[in-house]
């Protein structure tokens, strides 16, 4: 018999029950006649506090609250990919079928399609010993992804019966197992897992492989490791969402979980439409085949917004356990933090900085620590990479969410308003951004791309840093008075900014650039710098060098050289040599 109670008070998404009725902390509850889904968030002898994941309009004191006897869980089985869920894993497409274009309250739909029969290949045989995480069966969930049905983590024993290969629904038993602790259990494709509990792993590996994104400023200047964490803070209009979209489209993870947490409805529609059309260049499959969307838009209930982050994380960990590399795009963690603040305010908790609850930092750290490159219980390797957007209030990075996030992520990609105003995209500021992964990843770049890669990267960053120092002077006295070698640095830095850092997401070739081309671009820019430098050392004036169109041609490489015609770089090298020779001939 489940625990029940009666509603005493209602204040927005917070419902209270008088007295202690025996509910458990974090237990899932059904509230009122509409059976709205809620969660117990506070217990005392005097009252039980519940947050409700749906609109509470129409709820009356005295209506029943019923405990589910378990924490808020996600349902894990084939059918998760290509789907779009709300913050507590209810499929929005099914809700639309039941409730129409607008989302009604108390709508009851199945999380996953229980009638669909999946083509199943059984991977265990009778008499085999299975452990938590052992792959029981394989199901081609989409064109791109083979779903592995895992043994639940509380099951350990010997298989006594298996079904034949064939088509099964997610609820039909596949395997019967005699448990070590006695008794037997039938296993289906479905399992439940509480969203707030990290799924266990054997051990964690250091992050030594990069998440390749095809975005030049990320891959070269500020790489992210697989299993790493990154934050993208930026005021409104600086391109957080665009950057997240680009990463979701092109990064080399196997699976993308895109969490739209308190963001715009039209943006989620955009992702849905675009990903259903776009083809993954590496596999030729639709991008949607490897993607799950969690959409809890800003006008959907605030408590579900808080939960959406955990729902997404748990789904990601589930696919990681199958041995996949998963990347989570959380857009935006500030909305999640604000949901915490809103609920905390309703609970009349003592506010800390800027009204945020004092536990903001510990919640953020617990969130980011669920990322990692790990060995799973079944011996496979997988990773969860978390890339969280942060929307600082007033674009000011000193606010609590940005500051606390900075403590727990190792890659910080600061978006800059002035770059965005000048429509320099991605508007990642190369002076305030940083990555701690560079040293971890350097061996990989050396072995898999080129020994020269990190050296080039450092040269490029050096030039940019020098430029910013020179710009301080230019701001005071103008650029004309600088010596020619410094003018050259400014010119090369301009080439780097326009030709390398700026990347056009809407250009067919430029939207994704392989590492080889990135390296070649860096090399050709540095070669140009070297040649010009030696001309300047021979007292050729910068004004003379600037007359040549070579700088503009190098800038246009990103458009003019297709990703597949890297041999063209030889021509550019020759062009620079000719330019050098021409100047020498004319002036020496």
């Amino acid at each position, binding site marked *: 018999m489940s625990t029940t109670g009666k509603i005493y*008070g*209602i*204040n*927005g998404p917070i419902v209270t029950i008088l007295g202690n009725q025996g509910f458990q902390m974090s237990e899932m509850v059904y509230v009122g006649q509409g059976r709205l889904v809620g969660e117990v968030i506070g217990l005392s002898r005097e009252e039980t506090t519940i947050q409700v994941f749906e*609109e509470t*309009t*129409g*709820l*009356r*004191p*005295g209506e029943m609250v019923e405990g589910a006897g378990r924490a808020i869980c996600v349902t894990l089985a084939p059918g998760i990919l290509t789907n*779009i869920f709300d913050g507590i894993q209810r499929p*929005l497409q099914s*809700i*639309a079928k039941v409730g*129409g*274009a*607008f*989302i*009604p309250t108390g709508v009851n739909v199945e999380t996953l399609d229980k009638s669909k029969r999946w083509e199943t290949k059984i991977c265990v045989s009778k008499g085999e010993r299975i452990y938590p995480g052992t792959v029981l069966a394989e199901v081609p969930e989409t064109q791109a992804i083979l779903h592995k049905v895992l043994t639940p983590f509380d099951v350990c024993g010997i298989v006594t019966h298996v079904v034949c290969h064939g088509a099964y629904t997610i609820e039909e038993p596949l395997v019967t197992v005699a448990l070590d602790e006695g008794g037997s259990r039938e296993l289906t494709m479905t399992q439940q897992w509480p969203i707030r509990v990290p799924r266990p792993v054997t051990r964690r590996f250091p992050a030594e492989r990069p998440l390749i994104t095809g975005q030049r400023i990320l891959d070269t200047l500020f790489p992210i490791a697989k299993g790493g964490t990154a934050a993208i803070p930026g005021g*409104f*209009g600086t391109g957080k969402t665009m950057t997240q979209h680009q990463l979701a489209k092109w990064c080399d993870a196997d699976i993308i979980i895109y969490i*739209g947490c308190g963001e*715009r*409805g*039209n943006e989620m*529609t*955009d992702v849905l*439409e675009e990903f259903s059309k776009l083809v993954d260049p590496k596999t030729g499959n639709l991008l949607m085949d490897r993607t799950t969307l969690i*959409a809890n*838009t*800003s*006008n*959907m209930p*605030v408590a579900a917004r808080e939960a959406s982050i955990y729902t997404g994380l748990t789904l990601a960990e589930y696919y990681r356990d199958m041995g996949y590399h998963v990347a989570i795009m959380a857009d935006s963690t500030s909305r999640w933090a604000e949901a915490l603040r*809103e609920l*905390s*305010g309703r609970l*009349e908790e003592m*506010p800390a900085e*800027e*009204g*945020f609850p004092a536990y903001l930092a510990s919640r953020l750290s617990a969130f980011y620590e669920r990322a990692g490159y790990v060995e799973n219980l079944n011996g496979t390797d997988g990773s969860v990479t978390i890339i969280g957007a942060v*929307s600082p209030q*007033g674009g000011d990075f000193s606010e609590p969410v940005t500051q606390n996030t900075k403590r727990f992520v190792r890659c910080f990609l600061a978006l800059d308003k*002035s770059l965005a105003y*000048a*429509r*320099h995209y991605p508007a990642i500021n190369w002076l305030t951004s940083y990555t701690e992964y560079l040293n971890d990843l350097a061996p990989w770049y050396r072995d898999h791309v080129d020994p020269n890669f990190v050296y080039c990267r450092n040269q490029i960053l050096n030039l940019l840093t020098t430029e910013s120092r020179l710009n301080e002077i*230019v*701001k*005071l*006295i*103008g*650029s*004309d008075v600088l010596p020619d070698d410094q003018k050259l640095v400014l010119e090369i830095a301009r080439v780097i900014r*326009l030709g390398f850092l700026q990347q056009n997401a*809407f250009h067919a070739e430029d939207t994704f650039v392989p590492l080889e081309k990135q390296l070649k671009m860096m090399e050709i820019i540095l070669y140009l710098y070297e040649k010009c430098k030696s001309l300047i050392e021979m007292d050729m004036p910068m004004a003379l060098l600037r007359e040549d169109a070579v700088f*503009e041609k190098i800038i246009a490489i990103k*458009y003019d050289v297709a990703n597949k015609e890297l041999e063209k770089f030889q021509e550019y090298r020759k062009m620079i040599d000719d330019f050098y020779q021409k100047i020498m001939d004319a002036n020496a």
Partner: protein
Amino acid sequence: MSIEYLGLSEINGPLIAVEGVQDGFYEEMVEFVVEGNQKKLGRIVEINEDKAVIQVFESTDGMSLNNTHTRLTGRPMEIGLSEDILGRTFNGLGEPIDGLGKITPECVKNVNGMPLNPCCREYPRNYIRTGISAIDGLTTLIRGQKLPIFSGNGLPHDQLAAQIVEQASLGEGSQEEFAIVFAAMGVKYDVAEFFRRTFEESGASSHVAMFLNLSNDPVVERLITPKVALTAAEYLAFEKHMHILVILTDMTSFAEAMREVSSLKGEIPSRKGYPGYLYSELATLYERAGIVAGVEGSVTQIPILTMPNDDITHPIPDLTGYITEGQIVLERSLHQKTIYPPIQVLPSLSRLMKDGIGAKFTREDHQDVANQLFSSYARVGEARDLASVIGEDELSQVDKQYLKFGAAFEQEFVAQGPSENRSIQETLDIGWRLLSILPKEELDRIDTKILEKYYVGQKAEASAT
């Protein structure tokens, strides 16, 4: 079944507490009868067993703890709607105040609305020509978008909004039905009157539904006004298949009203005393713009807000910017240079622009021209800073050209007459003419092919002078 409760247990500004309430529910509407004749409306905002806290939509003057009868209506806040609301004027609660009598409702809707399912939305792609270069060219308005105007007190945001409405609605002779829903929250009488007169003069007033809560009307009513207006807009758009432009002014007053009521309720304040749910509240309004897939009709929102002290980082513009799909920012210094409309283009943005322009919709060079104008105008700022330190004479040749470009951009591209209606071709051509002030090498945001095709260069400039 309607029980009447006699007497109240507490009155605190617009908030009233009643005890012994049976079966009341959260956000239920309540009717009060004061002294047996005066009727007032309220809404339950907090309920603890039998004690309800009720927000009164009118002034609580004259109410005492003894003389008031309270009756629960058993319904949330609703409004009766029919197509007849067009051409009419209502108060902030949706009651007619134009003396033309009640409307006969065709249906009754809950004003709280429901969130639009993201997978039933249609991504907005149809651009709306406003005839204003700074908007059409650089921050294109898309049908189904929410694009606020960030303004300050004393800036001509009302005039700009009226011009957008006038030119966007009556252009092109299209066959689609178009209507305007206008919601005023705490605005001055003159402002409401200005809009009414403008609609009348442009002959649009039969297509306008006005919801007015003026600055001397009750504060609590202000909280419900935008919801009522948006409910009407959704009805006209999705059930009557019209294209609706919603003007909400002034969102700052709405947020102020929220802060006032929140502090009376004794809630814990977050930023600048605004309640923690300010973001969620604003979002439930702004997100009611959009297009439902497979349904003819759309809701486009142009909220107007005055930034306190012209500060764009103030919580109201800040949170708004995070929810809306861009913003049009007005700047005082441009206004002081007598440039109308004083749109500062650099912080202005339209997020939906990228998908609604280009060869299929406007012209192939639109995106490139826009990027280049933004980028070059940003550079103008740097040149001006430098000029203010070392003097204009000392600037390099290129920087001088930028100064010239900057002045021309403000005077010829941004500035236009209050009834000047430019076509997109004109706007882009002005853009090219201005870009030609700059040397070709400086135009680094434009695809080489497009540059070859459209760049007019110095000769055009020479012939122009």
